[in-house]
């Protein structure tokens, strides 16, 4: 073999390896942890913004009447045209897709997005991906939001978010198959329902129920509590009680009878009840979860002033009532209950019945006693997430 050739080949090889090494080292993922903005910087930002006459609203499916009447009225009242997109199916997925875009300093193309008060929202806030709100432009929110919806631990003082709607995680059961009244979370652990129990795949949702079953308050829980809850859920799994760990599809499964009882979100069940399906929803006596889907303006939004105007517009009681009549979750505007009651008086036939059901439903208008049983998600930081998530994912994704 020609020695000269070999050395040249070796040189190429070394050059190749070092180039690969350099390339490897160069592709980092930068952190973006942001310091909270100073108050005058926030004012300064908003003072420079103007109305553009356009707003893009990204929301979840079935969160807006099909005719989009509230948005149309907003357009008539303000002259701001809107685009409404149902693009959010899951917090984790939506955040996972958005994060690299926001990290690169680019715009998502939405002026308002709606996110639940879970891990992803906390990440958004910590990473500085959310614009702080100018409350001087939110008079309807100040006047009409219920006190509970102004005091949220995940966003003190509503600095970044205001609620769109709230809901309760409890138990739904199929009354054709389950003949007893379900009242307790222990039913989800009852061997007689072997293979007929649905649980949620979301780490925070299932974690909460594991903790409720053991009498632990998830809002005040510690790592030791999570492990205990994990063990309890693992027992349930290993005993073959759980049919499947569900995302949104649990509601079809329980109304078709594939599962007989399952963790469930109140509004879904309420909609199915109105459709005449044999499902019932209970907040277990040990406790249930209350969550809130929040409107926020992502960093880089093109029309922040218009977004703020729309967010505030939705806090007029009449508009909130129209929305809630369709969404059937818990509205952050308490005056809606009276408005719907008034409407029920003049309505006729099936409409009247449906409205009366809504007004009296503890799922849409929880009483103080209901609220007392309800707890929020476990507050998690970027560090504790890395302990919390694997504990519960090792059960749902074994």
């Amino acid at each position, binding site marked *: 073999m020609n020695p000269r050739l070999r050395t040249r080949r070796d040189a190429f090889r070394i050059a190749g390896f070092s180039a690969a090494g350099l390339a490897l080292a160069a592709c*980092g993922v930068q*952190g973006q942890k942001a310091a909270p903005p100073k108050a005058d910087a926030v004012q300064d930002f908003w003072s420079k913004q103007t109305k553009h006459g356009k707003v893009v609203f990204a929301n979840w499916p079935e969160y807006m009447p099909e005719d989009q009447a509230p948005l149309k009225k907003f357009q008539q009242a303000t002259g701001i045209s809107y685009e409404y997109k149902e693009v959010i199916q899951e917090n984790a997925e939506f955040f996972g897709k958005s994060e690299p875009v926001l990290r690169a300093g680019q715009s998502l193309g939405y002026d308002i997005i709606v996110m639940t008060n879970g891990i992803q929202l906390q990440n958004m806030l910590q990473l500085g991906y959310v614009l702080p709100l100018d409350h001087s432009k939110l008079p309807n929110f100040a006047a009409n939001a219920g006190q509970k919806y102004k005091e949220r631990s995940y966003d003190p003082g509503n600095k970044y978010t205001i609620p769109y709607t709230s809901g309760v995680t409890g138990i739904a059961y199929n009354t054709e198959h389950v003949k007893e009244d379900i009242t307790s979370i222990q039913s989800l652990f009852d061997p007689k329902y072997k293979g007929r129990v649905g649980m949620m795949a979301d780490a925070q949702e299932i974690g909460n129920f594991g903790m409720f079953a053991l009498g632990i308050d998830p809002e005040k829980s510690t790592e030791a509590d999570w492990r205990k809850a994990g063990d309890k859920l693992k027992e349930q799994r290993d005993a073959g009680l759980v049919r499947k760990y569900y995302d949104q599809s649990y509601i*079809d499964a329980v109304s*078709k*009878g594939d599962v007989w009882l399952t963790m469930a979100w109140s509004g879904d069940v309420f909609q199915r009840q109105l459709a005449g399906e044999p499902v019932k929803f209970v907040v277990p006596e040990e406790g249930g979860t209350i969550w809130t889907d929040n409107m926020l303006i992502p960093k880089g939004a093109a029309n922040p002033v218009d977004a703020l105007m729309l967010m505030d517009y939705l806090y007029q009681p009449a508009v909130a009532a129209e929305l809630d009549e369709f969404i059937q979750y818990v509205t952050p505007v308490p005056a809606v209950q009276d408005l719907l009651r008034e409407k029920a008086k003049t309505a006729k036939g099936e409409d009247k019945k449906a409205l009366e059901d809504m007004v009296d439903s503890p799922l849409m208008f929880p009483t103080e006693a209901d609220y007392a049983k309800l707890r929020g998600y476990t507050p998690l930081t*970027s560090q504790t997430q890395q302990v919390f998530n694997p504990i519960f994912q090792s059960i749902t994704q074994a």
Partner: protein
Amino acid sequence: MRRLTPYLLALPSWMWLAIFLVVPMVAMASVSLQTGNAIDGFAMTFSFSNYGDAIGRYSTQLVRSLFYGAMATAAMLVIGYPVAYWIAFKGGRRKSVYLFLILLPFFVSFVLRTISWNFLLADNGILFGTLKDWGLLPDDFHVLATTFAVVGGLTYNFLPFMILPIYVSLERVDPRVVEAAQDLYATRTGAFRRVVLPLSLPGVFAGVLMTFVPATADPINAAILGGTSNTMIGNIIQTEYLTNLNYPTASALSFTLMAVLLVGIFIYARALGTENVLEAAAR
């Protein structure tokens, strides 16, 4: 200039490979060796232990995925080969219609088609509900949330990718070759076994390649049709990327999966005696 022409012609494909294959692969390889979290950022630490940790934690799902992928591929072969054979040799003038029919479901989204199975196979759905009403099935019989449902879904979803390449290679078999074999006193099965089958092996190889890889990595079927013990590695990678923002673990798992698949395909190619893997796949 003339000497450069072939290289200039090849340039677009090289650029394509460089931009859409090499760059992302290097980026992913880089991420798989980093440590950190999404909030504080990731730093390159050349921590090869990411691989050990990821494989250690998810070996069950990794092995399960390969097993499901292999089962589905075998099922596709058993179903797909006769179909391809029939179309190629008995299809007559309507060959293109049959091929179109096989591709027809592809006009509907992958996810929707998988969800449709969910409706068809529901415990008390059209099929099983009726059979249960007639007393032909026990009340607690179910197919959803079982391994069978997941492998069945994979088989259904990727079947055309098995049929088409086999069809192409069978289509190319000259019927006179078969005649010649029979003239030389081969029985019909003998002619098939010694002439047609070997000639169609490149198609089988391409079919297996095109189905085993996506079936093994697929996250959709397990999520929609599976139960509590059917999680596949694709689901894990998805969760690690999108839910946990644990990019290093997700990248390490992706690379591991890729490596295992490559080794598997290499062994398969050797076993099949295909001289040149690329040539066979390209044919």
